[in-house]
């Protein structure tokens, strides 16, 4: 409201953006320091290797490999950029998933499980319906919708136990994650979708292109030759815009945010907090499921089905994306692109140096760590202490608070009745 009077650097939005950028810089610097120290302490890598690693961490997206003499070469690499767009697609969707739940005061760490369930249903539909009988476009659409529904239903489970039994959604989400990983392996074990044609690929499901189902490229493959990019990234961006409109311009979005700000006050105001908690988790699950569908319907991706011992990183990476974007759906697009860029940098490190891609996970973890106390960072930027701390996107709730399951909202009127 008073934007004209506040200087640009003191505006809330600017400060938040600066805080996120500062987190990124600190994360990259710490990651760089680890690379430097590991390199200097390891005789096989040495100072030269360490400096290569450092340069790749900060500018890996511009790497074009090694020249004939073995030196790193730099320049615009369309394959890398295209792959970055491709990898941004699922993390934008899971980032949206986590962000929507955050807005309702829920921490959706269940995105990996929802992602897995979306993957499973999508792949079964895409490979199960013969494209000789049904047009490939229809199968694609059905599979996409199937993934969304599966994710939504899976997301409902932690939502339901949170709303009605007041179980901490973090624990419920973790359990549903592992259950999903086992269910997916169970369903695909012995199924006819396992890839038995290419026998070097044991443990994988067929690509959807085996059934002629694939996301259209819309010419993006000519723009970024050699990369996996397709129109899915555009769908992800459309989803982000739609979520922005839903959260900021509709009654439903307002109700969801009201529940996130204060569940009990929202109920007092006539908003059904339970319905909104379940709904929020369902929307979050749908978004994660949609992300999985987009990724695996690309036609050039394969799903490793014996996944019962591991959870997909795309799901967990939704958390840093949402935190970096401060739960703003439009911000999620850029945070997702950044996360995908880190991913590409990790691949460059693995391919070109003695380091490996896990250093980028370290950077991501540091960024999440910093966003846990983003308030302190924001105060550091503005250089002043706020009297009223602005509320975080997520309101911390202890695992179980039975005392608050039935808040004594009507206590006052009850006492009044006794006196009368």
């Amino acid at each position, binding site marked *: 409201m008073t934007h004209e009077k506040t200087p640009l650097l003191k505006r809330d939005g600017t400060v938040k953006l600066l805080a996120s950028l500062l987190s990124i810089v600190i994360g990259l610097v710490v990651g760089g320091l*680890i690379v430097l120290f*590991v390199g200097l302490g*390891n005789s096989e890598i040495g100072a030269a290797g360490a400096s290569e690693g450092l340069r790749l961490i900060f500018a890996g997206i511009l790497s074009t490999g090694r020249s004939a003499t073995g030196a790193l070469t730099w320049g615009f690499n369309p394959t890398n950029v295209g792959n970055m767009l491709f990898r941004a697609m699922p993390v934008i969707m899971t980032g949206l998933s986590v962000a929507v739940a955050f807005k309702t005061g829920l*921490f959706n*760490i269940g995105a990996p499980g929802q992602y897995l369930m979306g993957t499973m249903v999508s792949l079964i539909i895409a490979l199960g319906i013969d494209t000789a009988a049904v047009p490939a476009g229809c199968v694609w659409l059905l599979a996409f919708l199937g993934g969304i529904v599966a994710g939504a239903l899976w997301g409902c489970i932690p939502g339901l*136990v949170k709303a009605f*039994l*007041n*179980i*901490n959604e*973090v*624990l*419920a989400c*973790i*359990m*549903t*994650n*592992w*259950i999903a990983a*086992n*269910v997916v*392996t*169970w369903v695909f*074990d012995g199924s006819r979708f396992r890839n038995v044609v290419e026998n070097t690929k044991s443990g994988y499901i067929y690509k959807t292109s085996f059934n002629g189902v694939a996301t259209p490229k819309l010419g993006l493959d000519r723009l970024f030759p050699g990369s996996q990019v397709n129109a899915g990234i555009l769908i992800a961006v459309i989803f982000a815009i739609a979520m922005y409109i839903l959260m900021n311009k509709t009654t439903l979005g307002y109700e969801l945010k009201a529940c996130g700000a204060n569940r009990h006050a929202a109920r007092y105001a006539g908003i059904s907090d339970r319905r909104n908690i379940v709904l929020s988790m369902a929307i979050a699950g749908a978004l994660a499921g949609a992300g999985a569908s987009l990724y695996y319907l690309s036609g050039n991706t394969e799903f490793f089905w014996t996944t*019962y*011992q*591991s959870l997909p990183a795309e799901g*967990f990476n939704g*958390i*840093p994306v949402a*935190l970096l974007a401060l739960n703003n759906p439009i911000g999620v697009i850029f945070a997702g692109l950044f996360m995908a860029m880190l991913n590409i940098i990790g691949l460059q490190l693995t391919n070109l140096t*003695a*380091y*490996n891609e*896990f*250093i980028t*996970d*370290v950077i*991501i*973890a*540091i960024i*999440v*760590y910093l*966003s*846990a*106390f983003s*308030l*302190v960072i924001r105060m550091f930027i503005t250089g002043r202490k706020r009297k009223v701390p602005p509320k*975080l996107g*997520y309101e*911390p*709730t*202890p*695992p*179980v*608070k*039975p005392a608050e*399951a039935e808040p004594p909202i009507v206590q006052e009127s009850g006492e009044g009745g006794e006196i009368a």
Partner: protein
Amino acid sequence: MTFLIQQTLIYGVPLLIVALAGVFAERSGIINLALEGIMIFGAFIGVLFVRLMQTAAVFDAARTAGNYLALQGLELLAMLVAAVCGAIFSLLLSFASINLRADQTIGGTALNLLAPALVLFFIRIIANQNTLQMISGDSASWFMIKKTTLGFDRDADLGFFGNTFLHKVYLATYICIILFIVLSIILYKTRFGLRLRSCGENPQAADSLGINVKRMRYTGTTISGALAGLGGFVYALTTANCASTGDVAGFGFLALAVMIFGNWKPLNIAGASLLFGLFKCIAAAYSSIDINGDGVYALANIGISSHFYRLLPYLITLLVLAFTSKSSRAPKAEGIPYDKGMR
């Protein structure tokens, strides 16, 4: 039956000690969601320590001479190192949540993301693969206590108790049980324990009585980190053949569920962790469980998919939480950063 009890103990004891780690943090007022991450870190450090000792050939002489006492000493040292490093790692969480008043859920999640990333980064550089194992031998040949270790004859029958608790067991299991008992008594029967718990219930009142809330919370979280790091190494030693893979299969979160199910009380937690250990044991070894010793593997013969047994522990956790959440009582002030000005 012997097999069943041993396997249940092997899976139950890490849960037991890590659930107690959760209790120490939460009783002091800090939600330690990072148990999983600290376990992963502790497992890595412990395995790395054993490897370094093997590289330096410190214990090779003892190994060839069959001096099992020295090898048990190595196991104890590795446990100690894992605990110390777990405590140091948990300082990241304490610093963020006590000094910077951070959101403890996000802080814990950050540690859960950081631990596997760091661990795998170093494992890949050290071993050029995604698993860090012992350089030679395995945990059974180096650390397991067998009949022969204790000086009995190879064919000696030690009776039911002897066969169950003295043959093919790990010293770490018993150390953890003793630690659990001692620390539970400290938490519930000493002045220090009372003060720690008061910081999780009403820190303002504790502060007004001269208790340093910040220091108490640091103490609670650090003990928690040490126990979780220790539990992580014990898990790697007894169930994963002394190998670190940057993963403990959700054991840290199972331990949190055990803690809630056990209502933040040691005796209930002991029972709950044995129950969960039993389910984990069924999941891992259902095909070779022979309950009454008649040579019939009942669970394998029912014909239920192995995948079902694998998801059972997680499903049971969810159901148990659903049915017990109404009656559980969490420390009142947990998760809330301490603010002197707040009343």
